[in-house]
C-alpha cells in the first residue's frame, strides 16, 4: 500500500510518500497509525495526537475505523488551510 504525508506530517516524519506492505494484524487506519508510531520517535511524535490528523483512503476522506485491505493509497495530513 502507498502511504502519503502532507504539511507538518511530511516534515516531522521526513517522508512524503512511501510504499509499504500491510503489516500483519493491521485491519484499519487506526491499526496502521499504531504500527507507524512504532517505527521511530519521529513517527511517534508526528502521529501522537490523532485528533489533529485528517485521513484519506484512495483520495476520499476516511476515519480511524476505515478498513484497509493492503492495496489502498492512505494519506495523513493536518486540517486543510487552502482557499
Amino acid at each position: 500500500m502507498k502511504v502519503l504525508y502532507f504539511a507538518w506530517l511530511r516534515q516531522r516524519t521526513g517522508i512524503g510518500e512511501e510504499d509499504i506492505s500491510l503489516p500483519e494484524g493491521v485491519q484499519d487506519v487506526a491499526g496502521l497509525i499504531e504500527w507507524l508510531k512504532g517505527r521511530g520517535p519521529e513517527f511517534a511524535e508526528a502521529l501522537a495526537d490523532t485528533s489533529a490528523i485528517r485521513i484519506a483512503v484512495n483520495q476520499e476522506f476516511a476515519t480511524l475505523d476505515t478498513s484497509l485491505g493492503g492495496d489502498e493509497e492512505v494519506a495523513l495530513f493536518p486540517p486543510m488551510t487552502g482557499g
Partner: protein
Amino acid sequence: MSVRVQREDFDVGAEIAALTQGNMQIGGITSFVGLVRDMGGNTGSAAMTLEHYPGMTEKMLATIDAEANARWPLEASLIVHRYGRLEPGDQIVLVIAASPHRAAAFEACHFLIDWLKTKAPFWKLEETGDGDARWVEARGSDDAAAARWSANTGKEAAE
C-alpha cells in the same frame, strides 16, 4: 463546471469571459478572488507556500463543484486554485458561479469557497520573516462557515 489546480496566476476577467460568453441565459455572475494578505506586522514578508495533494485536490474540487451545481440552478461554474510560493497581494483562488438569478450566483459562489476551505487538501506554510516558516492552523471560523451550508439545500435561491 470546471476545476483547475495550477502554479500559474489567473486573469479573472478572461476566466469570466471564457466561462460565460455565448450563454444568453446568464443574468448574474458572482466571482470571488482570495488574495495573500500581509499578516506580517513586524515580521517582514508574509510570503507563503501552498502545498496540496495532487489527484485528491482535483477530485475534491470537482465534487464540491458538482454539489454546487446540484444545489443551485447554475449555467456555469469554475474553481481555479494555485499552489507553490505566493507573496502578499498574489491571487490564491478564484471561484465563479453564473446563474439566471443573482441570489443563486451569490449563494453558490459563497458555498464553493466555504466548502473548498475545509474540504480541499491544501496547506499553507507561512514564512515568518526570520528565515523560518510555520504551518498555518485551520480556523474554527472556516469550519463554521462550511457547516452553515450543510442543512441548506439552496432551493430558496432558485426563485
